[in-house]
C-alpha cells in the first residue's frame, strides 16, 4: 500500500509546485497559486511521514512546533521594509537544512556509499554550507549589523578561488574514496568560509543580484539532496527554486549591464573601486528648492512620474509618498510610478513597498513600459534613487555605469530630486542630472520632504 501512496504523494507535490509558480505569473491567480503550492507541500510532508524509516516522532514534533512558531512570528511581524533581510535569512535556513542533512547522510552511511550518491552528498554539503554562511553575511549587511560597503583587499579573488578549488578538490577525493572521513569536515568548513568570503566584497546595490544568486544555490543544494536520497519531489522543487534564482539574477545583471560570469565568479566591487579612485569631487552649482517652491510647481503639473529608489525604503516614506500621489491625483494630475529593475535591495522591492502603501499596481510601471512617456511628463519626481537615473550611462563612455539601462527622467520638463545630500550614489559616480537647469534639488529625508510637500500642496490648493 505504502509503495503507492508515497510516490504518488511526491508526484502530486511536484505537480502542485509547478501549478503554484504558474499562478504567480498573474495578479488574478497569484493567491490560488500559493494555495496550490501549500497543498503540494502538505502532500510532500504526508508522503514523508508515512515512510517506514521514521521510527521516532518526538523530535520531529518538537522541531515542527518550534519551527512553526518562529516562522509564523517572523511572517506576521517582519515589516515590509525588512523583506530583503528576511529573504536572505530564509535562504540561510534552507541551505543549513540541506547541509546538515548531507552531513548526517554521510556519517550514517559511510564508507558504503556509491560514487554518484557521494558526489550528490558532496555537492549538497558544499552548496548548503556556502549558501548558509553567504546568506547570513547578506543578512548582516542588509540588516546593517555588518558594514554595507564592499570590503576589498589585494589578492582577494585569488584567495577566494584557492579556497573554492581546495574545497572542491577535497570533495572530489571524497567521492573517489568515501572512507576518508577526515576530508568531510574540510569540505564543510571550506565551503562555509568561501560563503563568507564571497559576500565580503559585495556592496548594498549589488544585493538584488546576490540574493537571487543565493536563491539559486539554495535550490541547487535541494536538487543535490534529491539525488542523494533519490527523491523526485526534492529534485523538482529544487530545480524550480534554482531556475527562479538563476533567472532573477540574469534579469538583475542585465539591468545593471553586468555580465553573468562577472557575478558567478564573485568579481563584484571592482567597478566601484575604480570609480572611487577616479571620482574627482568638484563644487558645482545646483538649484535647490524648498518644499513650498516644489509644491507650487507640482500644483500646476498635469502629469507626474514618481521614481522611487532605496532612499524611499530607508526613510520608510512609502505611505507619505502615496499620500502625495493622492493629493496630486485629487488636483487633477496623472500620477504614475516608474520602477527600475534594480531599485532597492531585492528584485521587486519597490513594488512590495508601494503595494504595502496601498498604491494600485496598475499605477506602477516598469522601465520599458514608461521610459517613452517621460518626454510628455511635466514633473519627474525622483525619491531616493540615483544611479538608475544618471544620464552618464547613456552619454559618458568612461563612466563605470556606461551601458546600464536607465530611467529617462531627464526628458521630463522638470526633474525634482529628493535626496539627503550631494553624496554620490553607490557606484561612486557624479550624477549629471543634478546640475541641469531643469533639475530642482529638494534636500532632506524622503519622508519629511513628502510630508512637507503634502502639507504645502494642500495649503496652496485650498488657498
Amino acid at each position, binding site marked *: 500500500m505504502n509503495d503507492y501512496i508515497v510516490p504518488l504523494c511526491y508526484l502530486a507535490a511536484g505537480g502542485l509546485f509547478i501549478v503554484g509558480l504558474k499562478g504567480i505569473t498573474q495578479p488574478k491567480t497569484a493567491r490560488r497559486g500559493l494555495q496550490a503550492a501549500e497543498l503540494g507541500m502538505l502532500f510532500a*510532508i504526508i508522503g514523508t511521514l508515512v515512510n517506514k524509516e521514521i521510527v521516532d516522532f518526538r523530535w520531529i514534533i518538537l522541531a515542527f512546533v518550534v519551527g512553526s512558531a518562529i516562522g509564523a512570528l517572523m511572517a506576521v511581524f517582519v515589516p515590509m521594509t525588512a523583506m530583503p533581510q528576511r529573504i536572505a535569512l530564509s535562504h540561510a535556513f534552507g541551505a543549513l537544512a540541506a547541509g546538515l542533512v548531507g552531513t548526517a547522510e554521510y556519517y550514517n552511511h559511510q564508507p558504503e556509499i556509491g560514487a554518484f550518491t557521494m558526489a550528490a552528498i558532496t555537492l549538497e554539503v558544499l552548496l548548503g554550507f556556502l549558501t548558509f554562511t553567504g546568506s547570513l553575511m547578506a543578512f548582516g549587511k542588509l540588516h546593517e549589523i555588518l558594514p554595507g560597503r564592499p570590503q576589498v583587499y589585494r589578492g582577494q579573488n585569488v584567495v577566494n578561488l584557492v579556497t573554492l578549488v581546495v574545497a572542491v578538490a577535497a570533495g572530489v577525493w571524497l567521492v573517489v574514496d568515501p572512507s576518508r572521513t577526515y576530508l568531510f569536515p574540510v569540505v564543510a568548513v571550506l565551503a562555509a568560509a568561501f560563503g563568507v568570503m564571497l559576500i565580503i566584497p559585495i556592496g548594498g546595490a549589488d544585493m538584488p543580484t546576490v540574493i537571487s544568486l543565493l536563491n539559486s544555490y539554495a535550490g541547487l543544494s535541494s536538487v543535490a539532496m534529491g539525488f542523494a*536520497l533519490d527523491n523526485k519531489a526534492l529534485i523538482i522543487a529544487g530545480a524550480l527554486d534554482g531556475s527562479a534564482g538563476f533567472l532573477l539574477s540574469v534579469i538583475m545583471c542585465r539591468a545593471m549591464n553586468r555580465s553573468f560570469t562577472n557575478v558567478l565568479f564573485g568579481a563584484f566591487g571592482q567597478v566601484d573601486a575604480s570609480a572611487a579612485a577616479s571620482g574627482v569631487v568638484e563644487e558645482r552649482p545646483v538649484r535647490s528648492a524648498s518644499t513650498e517652491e516644489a509644491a507650487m510647481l507640482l500644483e500646476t503639473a498635469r502629469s507626474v512620474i514618481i521614481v522611487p529608489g532605496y532612499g524611499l525604503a530607508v526613510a520608510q516614506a512609502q505611505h507619505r509618498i502615496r499620500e502625495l500621489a493622492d493629493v496630486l491625483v485629487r488636483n487633477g494630475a496623472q500620477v504614475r510610478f516608474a520602477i527600475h529593475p534594480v531599485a532597492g535591495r531585492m528584485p521587486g522591492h519597490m513594488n512590495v513597498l508601494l503595494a504595502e502603501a496601498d498604491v494600485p499596481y496598475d499605477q506602477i510601471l516598469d522601465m520599458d513600459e514608461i521610459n517613452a512617456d517621460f518626454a510628455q511628463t511635466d514633473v519627474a519626481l525622483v525619491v531616493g534613487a540615483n544611479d538608475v537615473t544618471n544620464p552618464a550611462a547613456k552619454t559618458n563612455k568612461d563612466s563605470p555605469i556606461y551601458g546600464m539601462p536607465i530611467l529617462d527622467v531627464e526628458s521630463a520638463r522638470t526633474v525634482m530630486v529628493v535626496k539627503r545630500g550631494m553624496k554620490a550614489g553607490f557606484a561612486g559616480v557624479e550624477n549629471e542630472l543634478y546640475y541641469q537647469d531643469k533639475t530642482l534639488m529638494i534636500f532632506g529625508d524622503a519622508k519629511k520632504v513628502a510630508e512637507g510637500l503634502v502639507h504645502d500642496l494642500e495649503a496652496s490648493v485650498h488657498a
Partner: protein
Amino acid sequence: MSTAIESGLYVFLLASFVGFEVIRRVPPLFHTPLMSLTNAVAGISLVGSLVIAGSDHGVMSTILGTIAVTASTINVVGGFLITDRMLKMFRPRGAAGKGTPAGGAGPSAADWLRARFRKDAAPAATATAQETAR
C-alpha cells in the same frame, strides 16, 4: 548508470525547463513574492530532514535532523504566510480599500494578529478620490 539516477536526471532537466518557461512569465511586480514563494517551496528539504530526525541512527544524526527540520519548517510556515501577506497587498486601481486583494478572500488569522499587536503600523487607508479625479 542505474535507472534511478537516469530518471532523476531526466526529472531535473525537464523541471528546470518548465521552471524557466513558467518563471520567465512572472512580471517584475511579483518578483519579491516569487522569491518568497520559492523560499517556501525550498522548505521541501523537510523531506530529507524528517527522515534523518526520525530514523534511529544515533544521537548526532537525530540532533542534526532536528535542527534541519526546525530550519525547514521555519521556511515552509514563514514562507507561505509571508507570501500570502504580500499578495494580499497587491490590488488593481478601483478595487479601493483594504481586504480586496488580488484573488479575493477575507482577512486571515495573520491579519487579526497583526491588528492586535501592531498598532503603529498601517496608517489610515485613504483610497478615496483616486479614481474620481481621472
